[in-house]
């Protein structure tokens, strides 16, 4: 039997690999520590000593002292730097001092809450103080719920539960709300976009309830590295924050390697598929028993990579030790995978960014990213999965053909020198705001002129009164409706109803295997779509749109499906305009009509198109905010057909550039080009928020368009292709100097 190679040996081998275009070593860092403060209870002190903790890292120390002074904090810490101590220590201390103290912990997911409970209870049992900490979520049994409400010192939950179960029933939680000292918000950076905007409003409601019961809790937030942690924390909590970022945790050596697959088609500048390269790289690590995590951008991509890798290594290691992980898997399945990773039963995992969050999966040695994760912050988060605690670790980013991937790997300084992105929320989005004013009014009546957060909302209260949701008596607006408003508001998705995926392969054992939001379902679960679940292909036999059910059956085919979406745009109102010499940029309200039209069948091995079919689903309508750029003068020498392609090319580049500049998912913001916009008949590029009412992304683009434009120009110019390729403007147009024309056109904008 061949001797297994160690990670160091593989690293040495890789150094000679010609596809590696950048190798950055991140030096180890020594710990910076301070003694445990005098004020800490001796019982806590000895429990910490039992775990070998005699000192605090500097950030933990500062967090503790700042909170003791009565300030809200946001601590920015990389993965595995002992961030939980930043909140556990002050919370446990407060309860040790006064048994009536209460704390509320918010985690973005149930899994993280479960992790935290186990960790917390371990430490509590060692302390020998009777502190009760419980998770409170959908799985908590009714008998336990009463105990949690009445005697739980630390209640660990998620924003959804707070929104739909705790706040609307606050009278059952008197002991918590009357004595609430601390609200812990972990993984702060995940509260952005629509979700963050909802959560900011949930916190406004939470603060209202606390105020009613006479408590005034402090906020303790922790966040991964983002550009604006203080701003985000202040927006989310509506409270002033002290930023703590003096990270004192030690760190092992990290190799951060950019891998660019070789070019296979020189004229078109097409490179070998990143997926294929990742499969082969991963095999090397896995067959040498090196625990590896592979990140992919989409659910579909996860499943494709998973099935390929399982195939590649099936003779050497069991396929059971290589698993997939993504939203849509059922919770117990996920728990099992997390546990397998921790105890080493599972050697490799292919995941979406679902594992970017702090779910405890222990220490992995290698992290491979299939393409640029889309943001600097997200990349560092994924990279943090490798070498959390032990010495050497390897992070491999394998670039795909997309413009932004090529831009990143060819300009490593962009990534390494750039401060990470800002996280944006818009709690004032009218739809979101009105939803939460409804919920808040259900919880407690509103006095006339009572602000919501700092917001004046009389017009909303009056509107809700007209709608007969509220009733107005004296100087107060009261809830007066049969409904339970929290159940009508989901924090997570624009589309409130998910499509349930039902596997009917076995007539005797029809079962639900997952669910998907409505919008994704339009393009991923249409009739005849190939849906992959845990690497197994399923074909959608029927998508029952009315009842939101997709019936699937296991199949074994040589292709996957890819759906097209047709989009129409109409301008409703223009709020802001900036005229330039021969162009103009606007910001305002638009209505978007989207309808999936057809799907293509694409061969798995060669990615060639082998067939197509229609999709018959109703049109979805979206009212949102947009920024659009129109060309008022066009060089008459350029044919309309060419103009159309130029616009398409620029839109293609913007599609990639914009999300990294405003820090959002590629699906949160859409770019569409029109050769003749409906309202002006002028060539126009629209950039719009993919959420009703907008969440501030398009507005950000409006403000920073020059920066975005510059990045787009640079990307096109730096692309090594001859005259247009999928990595930049998309395609080449015969005999024209398209790249130059695109750059010129961009300069005109």
């Amino acid at each position, binding site marked *: 039997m061949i001797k297994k190679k160690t990670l160091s040996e593989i690293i040495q081998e890789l150094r000679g690999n010609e596809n590696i275009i950048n190798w950055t070593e991140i030096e180890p860092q020594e710990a910076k520590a301070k003694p445990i403060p005098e004020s800490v209870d001796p019982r806590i002190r000895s429990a910490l000593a039992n775990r070998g903790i005699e000192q605090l890292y500097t950030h933990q120390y500062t967090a503790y002292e700042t909170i003791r002074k009565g300030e809200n904090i946001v601590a920015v810490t990389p993965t595995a730097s002992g961030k939980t101590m930043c909140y556990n220590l002050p919370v446990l201390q407060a309860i040790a001092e006064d048994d009536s103290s209460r704390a509320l912990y918010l985690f973005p997911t149930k899994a993280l809450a479960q992790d935290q409970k186990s960790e917390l209870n371990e430490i509590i049992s060692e302390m020998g103080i009777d502190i009760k900490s419980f998770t409170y979520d959908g799985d908590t049994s009714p008998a336990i719920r009463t105990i949690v409400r009445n005697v739980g010192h630390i209640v660990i939950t998620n924003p959804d539960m707070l929104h739909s179960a705790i706040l609307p029933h606050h*009278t059952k939680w008197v002991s918590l709300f009357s004595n609430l000292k601390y609200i812990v918000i972990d993984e702060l950076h995940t509260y952005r976009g629509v979700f963050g905007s909802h959560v900011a409003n949930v916190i406004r409601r939470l603060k209202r309830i606390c105020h009613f019961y006479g408590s005034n809790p402090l906020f303790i937030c922790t966040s991964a590295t983002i550009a604006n942690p203080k701003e985000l924390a202040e927006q989310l909590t509506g409270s002033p924050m002290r930023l703590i970022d003096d990270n004192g945790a030690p760190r092992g050596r990290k190799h951060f390697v950019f891998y660019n697959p070789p070019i296979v088609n020189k004229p078109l500048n097409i490179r070998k598929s990143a997926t294929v390269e990742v499969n082969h790289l991963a095999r090397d690590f896995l067959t040498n028993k090196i625990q590896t995590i592979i990140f992919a951008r989409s659910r579909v991509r996860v499943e494709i990579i998973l099935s390929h890798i399982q195939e590649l290594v099936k003779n050497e290691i069991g396929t059971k030790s290589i698993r997939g992980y993504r939203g849509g898997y059922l919770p117990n399945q996920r728990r099992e995978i997390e546990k397998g990773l921790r105890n080493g039963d599972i050697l490799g995992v292919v995941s979406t960014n679902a594992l970017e969050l702090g779910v405890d999966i222990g220490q992995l040695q290698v992290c491979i990213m299939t393409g640029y994760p889309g943001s600097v912050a997200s990349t560092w988060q994924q990279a943090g999965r490798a070498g959390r605690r032990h010495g050497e670790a390897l992070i491999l980013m394998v670039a795909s053909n997309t413009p932004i991937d090529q831009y990143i790997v060819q300009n490593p300084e962009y990534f390494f020198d750039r401060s990470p992105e800002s996280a944006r929320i818009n709690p004032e989005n009218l*739809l979101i705001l009105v939803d939460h004013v409804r919920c808040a009014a259900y919880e407690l009546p509103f006095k006339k002129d009572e602000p919501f957060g700092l917001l004046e909302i009389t017009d909303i209260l009056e509107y809700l009164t007209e709608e007969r949701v509220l*009733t107005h*008596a004296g100087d107060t607006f009261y809830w007066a*409706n049969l409904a339970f408003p929290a159940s009508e508001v989901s924090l997570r998705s624009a589309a409130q109803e998910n499509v349930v995926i039902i596997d009917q392969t076995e007539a005797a054992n029809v079962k639900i295997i997952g669910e998907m939001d409505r919008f994704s379902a339009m393009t991923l679960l249409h009739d005849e779509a190939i849906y992959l679940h845990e690497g197994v292909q399923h074909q959608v036999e029927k998508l029952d749109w009315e009842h939101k059910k997709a019936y699937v059956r296991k199949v074994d085919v040589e292709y996957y499906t890819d759906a097209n979406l047709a989009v129409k745009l109409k301008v409703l109102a223009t709020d802001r305009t900036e005229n330039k010499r021969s162009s103009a940029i606007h910001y305002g309200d638009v209505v978007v009509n989207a309808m999936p039209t057809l799907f293509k069948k694409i061969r798995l091995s060669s990615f060639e198109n082998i067939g197509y079919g229609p999709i018959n689903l109703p049109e979805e309508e979206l009212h949102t905010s947009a920024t659009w750029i129109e060309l008022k003068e066009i060089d008459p020498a350029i044919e309309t057909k060419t103009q159309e392609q130029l616009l398409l090319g620029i839109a293609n580049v913007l599609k990639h550039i914009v999300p990294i500049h405003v820090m959002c998912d590629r699906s949160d913001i859409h770019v569409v080009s029109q050769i003749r916009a409906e309202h002006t008949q002028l060539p126009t590029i629209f950039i719009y928020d993919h959420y009703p009412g907008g969440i501030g992304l398009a507005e950000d683009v409006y403000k920073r368009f020059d920066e975005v434009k510059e990045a787009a120009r640079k990307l096109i110019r730096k692309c090594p292709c001859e005259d247009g390729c999928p990595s930049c403007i998309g395609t080449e147009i015969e005999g024209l100097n398209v790249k130059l024309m695109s750059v010129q056109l961009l300069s005109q904008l």
Partner: protein
Amino acid sequence: MSSMRDRMNRLRGESTKVDIVAEETNIEFKSLAEPDQAEHPDRLSPGWAAFGVELATNETGSFLRRVTRYPMDYRHGLHALQELYAAAPGLAAFHPSEQSAAEQILFLDLETTGLGVGAGNVPFMVGIGYMSKGHFVIEQTLIRHPAEERAMLMYLAEKLQQFSFLSTYNGKTFDWPLVESRFIMNGLGRKMWEPKHLDFLHPARSIWRNTLVSCKLSHVEEERLGIERVDDVPGSLAPQLYFQYLADGNPAPLEGVFKHNETDMLSLASLAIRFGHLLNGNIEAYIPLPDEPEEMVRTGLWLERMGRKELPSQLFDLFMSIQHSKPSTLVKLAARDKKAGNWGRAVLLWQKAIIHSPTHFGPAAHEASIELAMYYEHKLKNYDSALSYVNTAFEHALHQSSLFRADTKRKAELEALRNRIARLRRKALKTI
């Protein structure tokens, strides 16, 4: 149309047709019919007097109240209200070591604006009933708008202190937690009254679960208390009627809600009488013996659970004299007898359960066969008889599993039977 609504409709992608409808209702809405109310809370619009509603005030504010007094000989269905005096002591069985008298019981029923016990569900009407000075008094309070709630609750809080038992139908999970929640919401404190609860939904379910199609109060009273409601406004309509009143200020449609709530209070009293009689052991004297065998057994079992162990024998004897009873009922009593060590009757019941089962099989017969097998095996050491019972059970179970998909429960059941058969065969061999 307000600009806010305009914007909301646009964002939600709603058509303008909706707006027109909304606008029409809006006109109606704006003509609030009690314009005086805000400026003159002490003035009552004349519509209320038509059905006996008066203005009530206390130091906190105003609300409306209707008081109805029923004479003691008033019959509501089968029972006269005065029977409560005789029946009430029996109700102490709900709270052993307590004494209960009719005057100590407060009957309570809410009409609310929503469902569940969330913070936004407001009891717009609180009905209470009690015995006082030779009358059954029903007091119903109503708020003309939510700002009156506090005054109403203050009044209620004071009233409650005079009683020690709270009698409701599903009040343990709904009415009382909601009242407590409203006290908190209105800053009136927690646990201001800690009554001993008499929630009649629980005994009703214990006794009538399988004999009545529903254990809703309106159904129970019709089937078992001889009460017939005429032109009743269903409780589920109450919120809409109240919202309509909030919008147009016209009291008239609320008369039906008062009536409905009043009937509920009377029915609560009737239930108290019925269960009180039962617990007092006055079964034939005041209330009819149950007709249905299932009800006889369930009533008996309930009485035993309530600590009235001496009472059910009459019911059980009556049950035994009935020729045709459901096998499921037979095994239910048999299980009780087994526990009580009354083997003779238990064996008889099990045998009957098998005989009375169609094709001598079904879930009850299955249970009976196994129980009999155990009885023969452990009590009589008669392994052959035991074997024959298990074998029959096994054959039927096997047949059953060939008809339906074998789930894990069925598989485990078959496995247990196989083991039992094997053990009995071994024992049978040894004794030869």
